[in-house]
């Protein structure tokens, strides 16, 4: 199991999930320069939304048939929360000092997390999530879980869809314009409020997909899973160049692969045998972030933003 191709594949799966969440961060940041700290919780509520749908469906229903419904349920929850957060928490703060929306985001993140903890039945403990099946497929020496196939497929579909949307649709172009310069975009007749809402909605949608994928992958979801995942995803967004949607996905993949490889191989480095393993994976992820920020502050695909006078 510890072969390099296997680790790369593991990293790819993990990274796809980070990338999906990171898209939400990067789109919102690209347009309103806001770190939506609550995005990790939006991801988490998406997973709980999907679980709720599953619990409402009749017992013994085929998971493959239920999956689309779960995705829709999760997406509705996540998108509603994301859009609601924008409308009622962030929008009134536009033009406020830079720290104000950040602190609001932290508050929102805590409130969402605790709301699930307190009011979702049984959420004090980890909740079991339905599984796609336990028998892995084998591709040469690589074992691939079914849920990982779902994850990669979802990531590819989402990315292609998003790229097409941003490139070709009117709204997508308006989005790019707003990201470039909100004021001018507004003068050009673009309803920037609508664009911002759409950015939040897309972020929520992708987070919900990632939430379902997380549940399938790990078999359990918890009320506080959003914090770590959000932190990683934001790291991925910064790694890839914040504001760039392709960068977010690339950053996610790089981060996922780096984490998988660090878990497996760091311990083999002489003198560091105690610093490998799952426990240290997050540490290496952040070390990677700091190194990237030192070497290439704008991220892998980011463009250097000229200092504004």
């Amino acid at each position, binding site marked *: 199991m510890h072969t390099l191709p296997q680790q790369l594949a593991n990293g790819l799966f993990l990274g796809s999930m980070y990338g999906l969440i990171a898209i939400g961060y990067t789109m919102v940041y690209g347009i309103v320069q806001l770190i939506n700290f609550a995005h990790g919780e939006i991801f988490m509520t998406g997973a709980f939304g999907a679980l709720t749908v599953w619990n409402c469906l009749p017992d013994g229903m085929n998971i493959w048939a239920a999956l689309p419904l779960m995705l829709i349920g999760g997406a509705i929850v996540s998108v509603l929360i994301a859009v609601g957060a924008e409308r009622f928490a962030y929008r009134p703060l536009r033009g406020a000092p830079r720290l104000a929306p950040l602190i609001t985001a932290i508050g929102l993140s*805590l409130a969402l997390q605790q709301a699930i903890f307190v009011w979702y039945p049984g959420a004090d403990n980890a909740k079991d999530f339905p599984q796609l099946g336990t028998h892995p497929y084998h591709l040469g020496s690589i074992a691939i879980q079914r849920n990982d196939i779902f994850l990669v497929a979802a990531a590819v579909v989402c990315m292609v869809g998003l790229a097409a949307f941003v490139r070709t649709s009117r709204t997508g172009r308006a989005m790019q314009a707003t990201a470039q310069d909100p004021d001018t975009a507004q003068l050009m007749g673009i309803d920037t409020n609508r664009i911002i809402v759409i950015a939040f909605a897309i972020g929520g949608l992708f987070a919900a997909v990632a939430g379902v994928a997380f549940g399938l992958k790990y078999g359990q979801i918890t009320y506080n899973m959003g914090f770590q995942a959000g932190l990683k995803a934001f790291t991925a967004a910064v790694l890839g160049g914040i504001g760039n949607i392709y960068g977010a996905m690339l950053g996610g993949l790089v981060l996922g692969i780096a984490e998988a490889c660090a878990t497996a191989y760091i311990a083999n480095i002489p003198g560091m045998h105690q610093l490998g393993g799952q426990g240290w994976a997050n540490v290496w992820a952040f070390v990677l972030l700091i190194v990237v920020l030192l070497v290439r502050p704008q991220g892998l695909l980011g463009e250097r933003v000229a200092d504004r006078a």
Partner: protein
Amino acid sequence: MTDIPLTEPLQPTPLGTTHPDAARSDSFVTLPPGVARIATLVGVAGTIVSTFMSWTYTSAFPGDLTVNGYPGGLQVLTLIGAILTGLVALGAFGVKGLTWLVPNRSPNAVLLLAAGTFATTWYAVIAIAQELGGLANLNPGGFVAAVASLVLLVGTLGLPIDRQPLDPSGAEYYELGRLSENGPARGTYRWLRQARLNHGELPVPDPARAPAWVQYLTIVVVAAAGVKVLTYGLATGYTELFIGYLILVVFTLWAFIAAGLTRQFSKITADHRPFAALMGVVAAVAYPFVQNNEHWANLGVNILIFGTVALGLNIVVGLTGLLDLGYVAFLGVGAYAAALVSGSQYSIWSGVEFPFWAAALTGMAASLVFGVLIGAPTLRLRGDYLAIVTLGFGEIFRIAVNNLDGVSGPKVTNGPNGISQIPDLSVFGYNLGDPHQFGSITLGRFANYYLLMLVITVIVVLVFTRASDSRIGRSWIAIREDETAATAMGINGFRVKLIAFALGASLAGLAGTVSAHVTYSVVPNPYQFSGAAPPNSAFLLAAVVLGGMGTVSGPVLGAALLYIVPEKLGFLQRYELFAFGVTLILIMRFRPEGIIPNRRRKLEFHQDEALLPAQQALGDGTAALGKAGA
């Protein structure tokens, strides 16, 4: 000069403008003026009388409200509220000898106090009825109290009220216009806007005209009253009393603001800053002697540690505008460093036992090193990156100390078990672990640590005030306000930010060294981003934001609130963090400047006179420049 909020809600009204009677508009309830006043006074009298009656049959409700002729428990709060309301009402009506209670002569203070009395009384009555199962459990005294306080409230609602003048910048009109899209909301919003009470923007007499001894006495009395009110609150034995206390304190403070008293008081403290600071310290030192109880001393130490760390964070966040989301890790670094050199047998260097000063320096130095390691790569970048890197650092710290247990990593921190059995400190041969006798008062272990921590708090306050009112502090604030402009003024942004970041980190490390000894053991658990109890990074940030960014007293007050309220409201436990998150959102939405926003209260008195001393001081230089400029 140290109290610098990020935002200032309103342009200050200069002292000396005419009393804006024009803004005093209709009361909420239409009553003939005489009737309103009489109702107010009758309500006060009735409420006072009611507190001497028995409110309930049984002593099952805590505080024993069954006694006739003597108030107890919540009745005392009602009594205090009613007396204050009566005095302030008489002052507002112009009764000689009491007008100083309402320097701006605004009836708003009366309304707020009446509302506080009403809320406390009705809370008590409802709590009795609910806990004992029905209104039948109320004695006539309870009904009298309820009715009398209602009469009081209605009476004050009939008084004319000073409204908040509309924002001169027109921002409110803009908001009204924006709301027009959805009709009913607009009506409500307009009503709320117009109903807003004027909070202390009305002109008040300059207290500097009062004799000096009056001003000094005021400071002493306020400091003493502060200790008394605080210790009373801490000593409240049951939740109902604490809630009643909280209601009354909030409304009373609000009323004092509305009356202009706080404005006068901040002017006095600004004029006599050293004396005020001294009295503040004296009051803080008095606390363990007045509240001579180890439990409350322990609470005091924790509040001081928490507040001191919040103050350090305030340098980073409030002054320099850098968002540090992993700040508690620096506290942790300090605590672990101190634990390692404390001589604890669980430390890997169990033989090493540093004296306190050396341990404190070690803790500071360790935090400083980490601060520089984190700051140096990230402070060159845009501010948002710092937020994520510090958040990441906080996580790394927690993971690392959990894993450095000799099994999943090198053995340094004993993992989740932490380093325990940290010996007590000994300062100048005075062992803080042992009780010490001062006259008739015995100071226990926590009281000793409280006093030690107080010294450190004073040091941090000094560092904060001195640094903020200096060349380096000004450059921090300039960076916060506009980094590009600051660098164009010759400020090396990176260097200055790194100094702030490192200073903040080392102050947290200093507090950490004490906290390691106070708690006997250091474990990874408290040092995380968010958790149910302070200190954690989210609570620290909230203490700063809630109290008032850039101020000295703000973060300390915020820390105290965030410590005491959860401690006292135990029943909230499950909802505590949820309430905390929602509170953060609401504060940012409605009062982003925090509880103590007023950096410039002092200036409001000076808007017109400011040039006088300046002109005198600068006579010569001015002439020279005038010539050169001509």
